[in-house]
């Protein structure tokens, strides 16, 4: 068993580097299209997309309906555009 553990894939807790690209998440939380590298976990795409879609929904409940959201981090920018209850998400790592 110990030998097998060496070859099993462990999910990283943190992403080493955010790739550049975009993906689309629908209103049911499913990823319908992506230009991100195949190695980028779909689970993370769903998490990023989920936060963006959730922000659109909850902002509207506050009387602040949004059609675009930009999250500016020191190391990257995440932009989301509302699309029929889902969103198109763009990931842009910053170059230093």
């Amino acid at each position, binding site marked *: 068993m110990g030998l097998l553990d060496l070859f099993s894939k462990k999910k990283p807790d943190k992403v080493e580097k*955010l790739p550049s690209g975009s993906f689309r998440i629908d209103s049911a939380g499913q990823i319908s299209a992506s230009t991100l590298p195949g190695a980028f976990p779909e689970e993370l795409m769903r998490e990023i997309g989920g936060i963006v879609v959730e922000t659109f929904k909850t*902002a509207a409940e506050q009387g602040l309906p949004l059609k*675009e959201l930009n*999250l*500016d981090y*020191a190391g990257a920018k995440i932009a989301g555009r509302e699309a029929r209850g889902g969103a198109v998400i763009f990931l842009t790592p910053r170059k230093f």
Partner: protein
Amino acid sequence: MSQERNILIVDDEQDVLELYQARLSKLDSKPRVMTADSGKRALALLASESFNLLITDLNMPGMDGFQLLTIVRGKYSNTRTVVMSGVSDDQYRARAYGMGIDLFLEKPGTDDEMGTFCDCVEGVLMREAAGGFRGVQSMSLVDLIQSECLAGTSCVLKITNGPMVGRIWLQDGDVIDAEAQGAGAEDGFRKILEWRGGSFEKLPADAGRERAIFNSYQGLLLDSAQTLDMAEAGDLGLDGEGDAVEGGENLGRLGPISRCSGVELVLSVDSAEPHGTRAWAVENEASLGAWTRERMERFRSLGDKLNLGQLKQASGVGLKRHVALLPGAESTLCVGIQRSFSQSEVRETLKEISVKWGS
């Protein structure tokens, strides 16, 4: 004291609001023009700062213009009111004037009509600047008292200035008593004379009122005029009791931010206190505060998970307005900026806000 005039325009059509805002901002008096797309939002703005003039449409979903005017007349009686309506109906007009509005205007349909509309609004602003008591347009309270005394009237003049109410009792043309802000007789009379504007009602005479003022009305007016002159010269160091503070809450650090170009609402959420918020022109302070706090936590934890470093800001392009969340060491700001601003104008405004908030 700033001489800038503040105008609030209320209409449920965003495009109309932007058009009026652009035109009225260019009036000679260079007023600050703010907009509200509902009666509820208008009340939130009125509660946040005082406006010289409210211009409202009548037909709006939810709270209509008449309902809004009823509240404004009762609560913000120093604010001049203008109705602009697409409906040219005499009954509407009569009802609006009956509520004490200053002007009823039809919505302009051409550029010329827009010019006339702007001239009329400027006229109301000029009257407001000159002071005066509503009911007798541009008549000062001194003129009003003099005319009642000369006519030998017996009545009670009820004078309302924002949240303050004063009464002057007249008996056969003599001022026999007055009361305002807890002061009676001549002190009460002086308090009322310190008010620069407001509205009045003439009530039936109160025959049972005992005389507490024995000075002639000319003597009273002279004394009051002297007191006012001294106060204006700063000799009395007035504590501002006589100023109608309509909704002008102590905003602290939010004050300068609310003055930034294009800012429509501001809310600050304290990092240390779980429910600590301050707000300007926000309708739903508690729930927007909770939303800001919760979103910031979500965005930050996403950044940590993806190894993205510090969250600098979150901003959104909205259907009604741009929205930005600006994290700080002690608090987070949620800012609403007017929809007509371009992305570069929004960036400039956010930079200005960050500087002001940081300092």
